[in-house]
């Protein structure tokens, strides 16, 4: 009997970010242009497993998806039990750029979803010469909150259950049940307070409305794609953001919600492959 092995392999890399050592888990597959993928808040890199196993993508791209510290198989730093996790723009950028440096990714394309879609805007602003392009999924320079994040980390409410239940309405109704529930599993198993800590970045430290007009898309092209069923980062949020960035391209994806790459991979590839082909040139 032949084992049904996937092409993707998983490894760990140890790296320093802002003076602290982190053990980071990442998966990769393919050869060619590095495509670094950033997961949503409170989740993990396996959201990108369908891209990692798509030969139409991996024949031209080296796809890499890592778990942010505190998420998935990446550990929190030593001493985590004494602190409250709060992601910031500076820490997020430093972590991503440290991964790029340690893995020697030259001129990578960086694609992120939700909070990952937010940070790629900052990367395009601050690190354009080092990047080939950025792709923001469910991406905007700012969006209006729709719930109180204090509910995510309480002693008498299961954080994983409530996180998954809150985001479940962001999955499009057309998405296959198999992938809907796999997407929600990522939220159900999150560490205590981690989703809330990510949302500190998303809510309190990433209002980029005053700066994204300075992004130079001739140096770092910007592609934004948002699902029509996303009421967290709405299509209007994305279109408004794209309108502020000269040269940015925005696409509203039919039949998709807030987690396009994991909630309906077949529908998503119809939108992402043409973008990746365009970036490849």
């Amino acid at each position, binding site marked *: 009997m032949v084992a049904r092995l996937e092409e993707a392999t998983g490894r760990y890399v140890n790296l320093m970010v802002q003076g602290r050592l982190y053990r980071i888990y990442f998966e990769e597959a393919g050869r060619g242009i590095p495509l670094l993928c950033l997961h949503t808040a409170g989740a993990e890199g396996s959201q990108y497993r369908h891209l990692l196993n798509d030969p139409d993508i991996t024949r031209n791209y080296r796809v890499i998806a890592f778990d942010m510290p505190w998420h998935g198989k990446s550990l929190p730093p030593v001493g985590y039990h004494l602190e409250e996790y709060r992601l910031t723009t500076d820490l997020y950028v430093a972590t991503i750029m440290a991964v790029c440096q340690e893995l020697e990714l030259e001129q990578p394309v960086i694609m992120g979803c939700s909070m990952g879609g937010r940070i790629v805007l900052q990367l395009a602003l601050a690190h354009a010469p080092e990047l080939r392009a950025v792709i923001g999924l469910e991406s905007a320079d700012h969006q*209006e909150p729709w*719930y109180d994040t204090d*509910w995510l980390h309480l002693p008498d*409410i299961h954080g994983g259950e409530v996180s*998954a*239940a809150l985001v479940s*309405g962001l999955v499009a*109704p*057309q998405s296959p049940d198999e992938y809907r529930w796999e997407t929600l599993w990522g939220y159900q198993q999150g560490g205590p307070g981690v989703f809330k800590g990510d949302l500190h970045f998303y809510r309190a430290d990433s209002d980029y409305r005053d700066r994204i007009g300075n992004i130079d898309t001739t140096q770092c092209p910007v592609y934004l794609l948002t699902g029509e069923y996303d*009421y967290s980062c709405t299509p209007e949020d994305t279109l408004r953001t794209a309108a502020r960035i000269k040269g940015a391209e925005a696409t509203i994806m039919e039949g998709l919600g807030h987690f396009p790459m994991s909630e309906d991979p077949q529908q998503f590839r119809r939108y992402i492959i043409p973008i990746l082909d365009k970036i490849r040139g």
Partner: protein
Amino acid sequence: MEELADRVNENPGLVRRGRFVSLEWLLQIGAEDHYLTIENGRLAAVTPGPVLMRSSRFTIHIEEDAWQRFCRPVPRPGYYDLFGMCKLGVARIDGDFHPLIANLRYFREMLAMARLETDEATHGS
């Protein structure tokens, strides 16, 4: 609403998820009140309102038109989820949020039980 009780109670998975829930909550659809009595996950009674001085732990208000859109088999964007409708301003939650949030999957799935299985008007919505 009578049908909603049957749908909930005939769904063993949903009743199991709500087995720690026993309370009464108020669903307001437009101007219509419905008091929903939950006993260990079963929807034990649906009492039409208004009822004078009757208590409930929390209230979910949904505008009539929004409720009709929510109940379609495949709702259009914005009307697929309670919190999406709250963000749109066509629904509102009042009262004690704790039992709702602690059992959010249960209550979301209970509301979704009201969804129609077929609706020819869906494509025109």
